[in-house]
């Protein structure tokens, strides 16, 4: 029998303060980061604007591209350089504000940019690999839809938790969900990832995944409480986390295998933000299901003791 962990006896309940402190610090750091940054970085799905993908037959620098953009009167741009891991070729993504991206104009912005690039670099062939434009008003609407989807998804999952596990575990799981989403948001903001629809999809999936972990652990603890009448709640909680620990880790490892594979091989594609968000979320979710959910149950039990149990 190959095991990553032999039977562990980690006293999670006693270690709960370490988890609380670590998470507390991360949460506060995220608050500060978001305040300093003026909120998360929104992609064009939400802010409106245009995203243009360009590839060149010969390498050019970001500075060159920026100066061409400045020449056609566009200084407020964001340029991302994308390196394809498998072929080594690099391409660019240029993001401009919705004002520039007016699509009704005779000559679209991308056409203007390509013509100018061609004039400046006669030998280099410029290809438009993709273009995405969203009007500012439509972006607002997408933003509302996304927020609505997140809230609705959350509400439905909460209802499910409420039906399936008891109140104290429910509270712990819900706290863990908000904890996971918040810290993931902080990390992707720090990494400069722009939030688009796929990132929202990743966040919702992370919620599902995080709850999934919490449910498995909570159910095991409830089972132990039923069968081991003599043990205290903290003993049962520790035993529950420890006996499910190898499952928690194995599942996280296999899921991380694929999400990291997507991060590496799809780095040049539109799902990169999705994959990186997913990867971060899985790590945070795995941590929180062991270090946040059960300790919160212990705390709740101390504050609001249920009748029959001893802590």
């Amino acid at each position, binding site marked *: 029998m190959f095991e990553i962990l032999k039977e562990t006896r980690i006293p999670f309940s006693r270690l709960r303060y370490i988890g609380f402190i670590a998470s507390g610090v991360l949460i506060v750091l995220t608050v500060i980061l978001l305040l300093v940054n003026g909120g998360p970085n929104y992609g064009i799905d939400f802010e409106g604007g245009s995203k243009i993908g360009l590839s060149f037959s010969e390498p050019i620098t970001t500075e060159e591209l920026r100066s061409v953009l400045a020449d056609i009167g566009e200084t407020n741009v964001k340029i991302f350089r994308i390196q394809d891991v498998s072929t080594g070729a690099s391409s660019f993504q240029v993001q401009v504000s919705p004002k520039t991206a007016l699509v009704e104009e005779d000559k679209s912005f991308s056409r203007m940019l390509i013509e100018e690039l061609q004039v400046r670099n006669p030998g280099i062939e410029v290809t438009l690999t993709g273009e995405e434009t969203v009007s500012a008003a439509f972006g607002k609407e997408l933003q509302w839809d996304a927020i609505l989807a997140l809230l609705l998804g959350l509400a439905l999952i909460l209802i499910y938790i409420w039906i399936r596990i008891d109140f104290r575990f429910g509270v712990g799981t819900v706290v863990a969900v908000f904890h996971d989403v918040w810290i993931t948001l902080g990390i992707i903001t720090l990494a400069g990832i722009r939030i688009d629809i796929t990132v929202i999809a990743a966040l919702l999936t992370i919620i599902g995944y995080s709850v999934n972990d919490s449910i498995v652990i909570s159910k095991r603890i409830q089972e132990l409480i039923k069968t081991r009448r003599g043990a205290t709640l903290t003993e049962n909680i520790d035993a529950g986390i420890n006996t499910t620990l190898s499952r928690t880790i194995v599942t996280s490892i296999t899921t991380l*295998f694929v999400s990291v594979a997507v991060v590496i091989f799809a780095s040049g594609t539109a799902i990169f933000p999705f994959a990186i968000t997913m990867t971060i979320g899985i790590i945070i979710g795995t941590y929180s299901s062991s270090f946040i959910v059960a300790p919160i149950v212990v705390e709740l039990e101390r504050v609001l003791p249920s009748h029959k149990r001893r802590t």
Partner: protein
Amino acid sequence: MKRSLWIKLVLFILALVIGVVLLYPTLRLLVATDLDEEERMVLEKKALHLGLDLVGGMHLVLEADTSGRGFTTQEMASATDNAISIIRDRVDELGVAEPNIQRVGRNRMQVQLPGVADRERALEVIGKTGLLEFRLLASPEATMKIFSDIDAHLSGDSLGGARPFSGYLVPAGSDAAVEKPNYRAFKKLVEETRSVVPADAEILFGPEEEAEGRSIRKVYVVKKKAEITGADIKDAKAMLYQGNDPNLDRTWMVSMDLQRSGQARFANVTGNNVGERLAIVFDDLVKSAPVIKERIPPGSAATITSTDRVGNEMRDLAILIRHGALPVPLRIVQERTVSPTLGRDSIRAGVIAILIGLAAVVLFIIIYYTGSGLVAVAALIFNLFWLLAVLAGFRATLTLPGLAGIALTIGMAVDANVLIYERIRDELRVGKFPRSAVETGYDKAWRIIIDANITTIIAAVVLAVFNSGPVRGFAITLIVGLSINMITAVYFSRGLFDLYLFRRPDRKLYI
């Protein structure tokens, strides 16, 4: 025991056969190289459907600008519907293989043009205001002459034996028409032989219509000169026929009033061409070609009669004549263009990521659970196989996020087997016999498996409902993948264990 195993085996084989049948067109498309156009099209209709982000193409969301027009909700919806049918005609002219145009919400439409590479032209065709013209049709004799000239030009034979051009034509009432499967080839011939047609005329098509069970488009030779245009029209409305012809009783017609500017010209044209036909041409599409019955004197209304007894056709024609162009201005609120190259790169990247991820998971599971790991891997492979089969069977659209969804399914699907195996290990540790350990393991784990999968499925369902774009592809693969997983991980793998322990309940488990 034995009987339940047999039932499982039969069900498994049945599912396997169904899966193969559903995936066969996709595999054949991938492998076969000697397919002709028609076979390819038939197969593509049944194969796994790839999204725009993978095949390349354009995705547009257009919004009907109804602000400040005092439209009621219903008028807004009908104006949008009219705009959609006009856009549909225009897209047909672009020659896109499988366009998808549908209304989204009250005043928006989504236009998807797979494989469109010329973005500027597509935008121009879709975004233009539209042009309505009334143009005379060439006489039947002149039309026949032009068709046979083209035949002669194409075959290099002036005697009129070969019919490479007019051979495509079938009669449709008093007009000639081309059947839908031949349309593209025929249109290409028309474009190649422009020089043969006299300079003052051109060959135009009617919209697609059903005639005697066939889908056809009429072919007309139309004069280039516009007698009157949409700007000369004051009003047009559809109404029930009011004349004395008993044949036209209870049919619909369009009554049309002209602006002062066009009245004299229209009177002349109709007066000089009684018996001829006047084509109503919109965006180079011949919408209708009524016969001129009499001179329409200045100031009186012109009527266009029809055999339409329902009224829809004439109402559409009236709207078209009245507005000439789109009933409402359209604004592009979202545009996404992906070049076919980027699409191909995305497929490659996605498939590599899935394969590498899969290989890592398979390796890990086999090392971690040895023999039982192989069972989990078999369950995983069949999960993937059925996932693709179901996606192909339901004609779901596979997008780039959908590929990520498949990858994620691989990672998460193993969870069910991990839950079961950890339980079995627990039972074995307590000293149970392999067979009873397996039984208890599965019995205890499956509830948790359902609980655990349902939360992710709930999240995915919300995503599928709230999104129409590529993200829906992700949500759908996740829902289908995890649902199938509950079957393969629990029933399929259990069957393999039962087979293994069938004769000797204490046979050593490699887990």
